[in-house]
């Protein structure tokens, strides 16, 4: 009896050794960096070593909201962040739908072509996307030249300088870039659906729309919700590159999201401590959002993800 127990223990220990490298990796790359948060409570300025930095407590957290002008700025920034994230979240079913319809195309070469063309923009960097946007929408770009030649406008429209519909146009750019890429996960999920389900439904006389509504989409929902959860946790991380390249003095009021704000104010002035303070706040909010979403999912669907 005793012998069996030690054998089991040894076996467990062996299994533990298998995962140890991965635990170490997570510890080194995910938990150890959290030590960097300590910078938020000091006034750190290179090249002075950190050991000589002065402890300032919560100063940098307070400085974000120390007067009405800054509070107003932060509120506007949060508004932009939430609005653009909400737009993205609210339309996160688009790639799923796109995948479903793509899958319905019977002509395989055409389907592959569409998929490739829509996936490619994902690999184009935002800097290049902006230069494409600039050559299309500047005062002598394709859009203005076309409209002027058609006699619709007399004066060029300064699209990139426009302050209206900034959230929407930015969402369009993001969708153009990401749609095909985001659909890949769903295409894989569709391929994993048991073919027998379809055959059975067809025997029962279901048409194509009914197959989609009753089999494909319900089978995709778990994938959809997992991705949604991940997106919610990333609610505040709506990226920086896109907004950084598209920002100018005219649209900044509406385009400045949290990450860009951190970059513009803190990194722009080399204030590491302040940027750490803001990113700490972000992490806290993200955890809260994730736990909240998980709770909601449990209440609504009876399933949780973490």
């Amino acid at each position, binding site marked *: 009896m005793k012998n069996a127990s030690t054998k089991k223990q040894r076996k467990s220990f062996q299994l533990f050794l298998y995962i140890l490298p991965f635990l170490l990796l997570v510890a080194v790359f995910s938990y150890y960096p959290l030590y960097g948060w300590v910078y938020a409570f000091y*006034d750190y*300025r290179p090249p*002075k070593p950190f050991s000589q930095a002065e402890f300032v407590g919560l100063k940098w957290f307070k*400085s974000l909201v120390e*007067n009405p002008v*800054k509070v107003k700025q932060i509120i506007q920034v949060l508004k932009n962040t939430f609005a653009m994230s909400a737009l993205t979240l609210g339309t996160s079913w688009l790639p799923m739908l796109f995948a479903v319809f793509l899958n319905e195309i019977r002509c395989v070469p055409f389907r592959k072509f569409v998929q490739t063309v829509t996936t490619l923009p994902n690999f184009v960097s935002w800097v290049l996307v902006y230069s494409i946007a600039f050559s299309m929408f500047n005062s002598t770009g394709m859009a203005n030249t076309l409209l002027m030649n058609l006699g619709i406008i007399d004066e060029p429209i300064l699209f990139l300088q426009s302050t209206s519909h900034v959230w929407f146009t930015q969402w369009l750019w993001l969708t153009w870039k990401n749609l095909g890429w985001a659909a890949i996960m769903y295409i894989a999920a569709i391929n994993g659906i048991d073919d027998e389900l379809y055959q059975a439904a067809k025997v029962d006389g279901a048409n194509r729309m009914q197959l989609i509504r009753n089999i494909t989409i319900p089978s995709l929902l778990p994938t959809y919700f997992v991705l949604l959860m991940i997106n919610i946790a990333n609610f505040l991380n709506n990226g920086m590159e896109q907004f950084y390249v598209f920002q100018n*003095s*005219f649209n*900044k009021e509406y385009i400045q999201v949290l990450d860009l704000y951190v970059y513009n*104010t803190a990194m722009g002035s080399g204030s590491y401590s302040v940027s750490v303070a803001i990113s700490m706040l972000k992490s806290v909010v993200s955890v809260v959002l994730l736990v909240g979403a998980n709770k909601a999912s449990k209440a609504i669907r009876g399933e949780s993800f973490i």
Partner: protein
Amino acid sequence: MKKRNMLSMAMAAAVASTSLLSGVASAEAPEVNHEELLQLEVYDVAANFQGIQTGWYAKEIKDRFNIELNIIAPQVSGDAASLYQTRCASGDLGDIIILDNADMQDCVDVGLVMDISADLPNYPNIMKYEEQINLFNTAMNEALGNTGTYAIPAEMNSNGPTEYKEDTVASMPRLAWDYYTEIGAPEMKNLDDLLDVLRQIQDAHPTNEAGDNAYALSLWPDWDSTSIETVNQLTKWYGQEVNGSVLIGVDNSIVPLTDKEGAYYKMLNFFYKANQMGLVDPDSATQDWNAACDKMRQKRVHLFWYNWQYGFWNSPEKGEARENYRGIPVGDMNVFQPSDTYYGDGRVWGIGSNVSEDEKLRILEFFDWLCSPEGLTMQHVGQEGLIYTVNEDGTYTLTPEGMTRFSAELQVPEELGGGTWNDGNNQVNQWLVASIEMNPETGETVNSDYWASFLEANDTATNKEWSEKFGAANEVEYLKANGMLDPVPSVNLSLAIDDTDTALIRSQCGDLIKDTSWKAIFAADDAEFESLWDEMCETLNGLGWEQLVEFDTAKYQPVIEARQAAE
């Protein structure tokens, strides 16, 4: 500390010659052994190239000193701040360290830079600049409570602290000579006249020859710092220079940038008026520097302001065809122009604290050569025979290859180092002594642009007509003769660095000023322009603007005092 700093400035000039490096300049440089190849790491904020120096310049210094330069370029590394931070943290920034003044002061403070005061007197070519070196180090030591000599300013010269030997000023209006004469070369008394001239030119030439739209003014936003860089450059036409949150005047005044009587407001208003007249490229706020460059190369921009913008268009052939851009004065201008960088240009060289005694001596020997007439000609011009030839009277003449060495892909013969000339050019991109220095061997500047032989070759129709109309050889001569230019003495000090609070305020205020300035240029009418400006001033106060102005006023006080002392 502020007060001490000011005091030190005044004293430093007086005691310079007797202080740190006192008087053993006659000693011989110690013998060093060149047998072993020495690879030096050069931490260089000015470099646009990272890696080992190759080509003809590498060969010249290897033959002389058996030295190889491994250039560490934060500008190229992708993340300059973290490279600097990591290398500082490791305690070894480099063997040769080239930094901005303020950063150097930080690095000296934490012990990354070596004290070379005992060695410098052995190097006669460096000791020519003893006064400049002492002045900088005394002020830095005052601030840090240190002693010793750590840094050698870059771009020094020995022409005198108030001398201005260039033939162009940094910023003034510059127009294409054929277009300007075509509308009758009208005299311009003020900015309104300039706008009128620009309007006439743009009306006559709404496109370039290829049919692309041309505008009087084309701006680019990517150089903006805490205010629009182009506006900053144009404030120099009216006697003020933007430095952070304040305007420093030729009259040694300091006023806030937001002063409505100041040149920033005046020039912002100039751009607004120009836009009202349709003279501003509509893409100004969204195009990048490269797009703007292309337009300048294609003659789609009628007004230049920087002197180096000439390089986008001017050439001897176009000059002969009367098409070159030339500086055209506006009557009420009062150009802000610092004199040649006698005391240095704001960057400094140092030797890392980790180098061995032997290495230190070899580096100093190398520095001494960099300051010698031979080394200067090598760095600023090139090799004898290939780039220039020596005339009978001892002066130099550029060879045809030398004339086009920057623009043409000149192949260097294998025995001189091989490769293309530009690839093999000095990639350190920073010089201890400026090219405007006089070469004692020729009696001319080191810079080939001012050699008699070069000026003769470049005397084009544009230049002749210009000189005839304005009665002067060049724009500097004209501006000086007409009381529009009185160069302020160039000073080189290590100024106060922003603490974290100030840096934050600066970046937030800067964002607001930039954004408002751009909106103001494109404002619909006078009322909107005014209200944007007033609103900006009000919001700035909420962000701590007054504190920032106070900080900058104190920061630049030593500059004012040094200028007053030099005048």
